């Protein structure tokens, strides 16, 4: 576990917390470790970002800095637009849900894991773009377009305006009013992407480096290779992290996990009771069968969809027969990584991510399978031959 910092002054300033991630990606590209880097690039405002495959040093530099309002998922981008990394070596910056989705798709042979370098970034939650603008207007009382930078630190959302003014509001306050992080981020137990090759973040950076360096933890040989490439080319300087810093990081992680469990209990309580099925379908019957949830889901990958068969459900009825939702829940339920893409894409605003996550937590209790935790865990039912009551 290290503190990392870019050696280049410009990278340090452009990037977040010393620009270590930008330095690692640039070095990997320049030393020909990867063919390109899949990064999230800022769009017109800080409320939007899009996935971008950077193949030059300048392009990576353009995408440096963090965004908290970009509702994207890199996993499906790799499969749909980069040919599942069959012949391209890709370094990808990933939030924990991106990393888990990539691992799940790797297990299903949709992404070639040999060519993927996962540069994980810690994530305490993302925000939906439109409500975020409303929130800035309501709680910070400034024009959302004046905001040039936002960051989440110490349980507060801190924004910086054009004039260099800093304003902060605690996330608890925002979430009590129904704003703040996305619902699935509130429930998320994975804040440090331990399934990625390396995890970078600002948690646990103390002393004079606070805010100026990135905490880097290495998990795999590939991660070590990334760091070695960056240090040997002189793009990154590393110092060992002090034990107090490591302890602080663990403590912060523990707090976030506890909060996530509280949110889970509170949100899942909506459907508790003997009439769970009816309560769930009171929401699900708003469905207009646009199939956005299927298109966006990183776990859904069949070429021929089961729900398009006549013998499964009547075609052309609205709302769709319950078999539509029940099939989705059965097929992706055990592996749902709770990325929230289905809910973001739903025009009927059905809390699908919550329902799927609820089913996933129930199945996890029965099977013990934690989706996306590691490439070695077998998917439920994939090793059924050994089971004999």
């Amino acid at each position, binding site marked *: 576990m290290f503190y990392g910092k870019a050696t280049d002054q410009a990278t340090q300033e452009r990037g977040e917390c010393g620009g270590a991630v930008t330095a690692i990606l640039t070095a990997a590209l320049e030393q020909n470790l990867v063919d390109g880097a899949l990064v999230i690039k800022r769009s017109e405002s800080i409320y939007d970002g899009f996935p971008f495959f950077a193949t030059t040093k300048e392009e990576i530099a353009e995408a440096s800095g963090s965004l908290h309002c970009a509702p994207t998922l890199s996993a499906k981008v790799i499969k749909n637009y980069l040919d599942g990394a069959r012949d391209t070596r890709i370094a990808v910056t990933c939030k924990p849900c991106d990393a888990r989705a990539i691992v799940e798709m790797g297990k299903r042979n949709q992404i070639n894991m040999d060519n993927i370098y996962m540069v994980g970034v810690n994530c305490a939650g993302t925000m939906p773009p439109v409500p975020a603008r409303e929130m800035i207007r309501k709680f910070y009382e400034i024009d959302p377009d004046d905001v040039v930078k936002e960051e989440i630190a110490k349980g507060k959302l801190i924004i910086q305006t054009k004039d260099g003014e800093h304003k902060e509001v605690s996330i608890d306050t925002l979430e009590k009013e129904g704003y703040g992080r996305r619902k699935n981020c509130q429930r998320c137990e994975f804040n440090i992407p331990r399934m990625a090759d390396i995890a970078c973040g600002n948690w646990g950076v103390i002393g004079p480096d606070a805010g100026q360096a990135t905490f880097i933890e290495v998990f795999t040989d590939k991660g070590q290779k990334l760091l070695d490439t960056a240090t040997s080319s002189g793009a990154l300087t590393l110092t060992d992290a002090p034990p107090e810093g490591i302890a602080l990081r663990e403590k912060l992680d523990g707090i976030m996990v506890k909060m996530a469990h509280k949110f889970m209990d509170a949100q899942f309580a909506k*459907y508790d009771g*003997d*009439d*769970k*099925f*009816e*309560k*769930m*379908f009171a929401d699900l019957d708003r469905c207009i069968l646009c199939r956005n949830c299927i298109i966006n889901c990183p776990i859904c990958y069949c070429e021929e969809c*089961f729900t398009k068969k006549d013998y*499964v459900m*009547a075609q*052309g*009825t*609205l709302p769709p*027969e*319950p*078999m539509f939702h*029940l*099939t989705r*829940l*059965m097929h992706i*339920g*055990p592996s749902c990584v709770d990325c929230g893409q289905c809910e973001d894409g739903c025009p009927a605003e059905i809390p699908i991510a919550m329902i799927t996550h*609820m*089913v996933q937590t*129930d*199945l996890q*209790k*029965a*099977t013990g399978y934690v989706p996306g935790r590691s490439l070695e865990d077998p998917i*439920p*039912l994939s090793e*059924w*031959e050994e*089971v*004999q*009551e």
Partner: protein
Amino acid sequence: MSQAEAAQSSEQEWEPRILTFCCNWCSYAGADSAGTSRMQYPTNMRIIRIMCSGRLNPMFIVKGFLSGADMVMMLGCHFGDCHYLKGNFACNARMTLLKPYLQAIGINPERLYWNQISASEAIKFKETMENIVKKGKELGPIANELGVHAQGAGAQTSKKTAKAVAEDSFS
């Protein structure tokens, strides 16, 4: 589940409807042998013959519940007896995941029953049926759990197709 049956069941005491999937090689032959031995067993079940218990897509069971079955039963060969060598292991593994799944979506997992009956076990077949009917009566109609989505006797609403809705709104 014909209308005649539905009308009959509303007049008399409520009887559970039990959808039974039988494997061609063991359980279906078991049912056959119970029949040829002239054993009396409840008539609540509707048997669907499938070639192997491993053929059963778990969603067929869910579809069964949604189509008005109060209990769904899966009968297959004993371990090691499978005509296709490993089909019943696959079925068994699916059941271990399907039960918590049914619980998670709000259907009582006890409505699903999985057992192994060989071709010669006519008595076991009869006893199983009797127990299952008793169990079905305890659990009550599936419409209690599914609400408006229940089909058959407990269903209140009929769903329209998108075309019918469009025709209604233009007429």
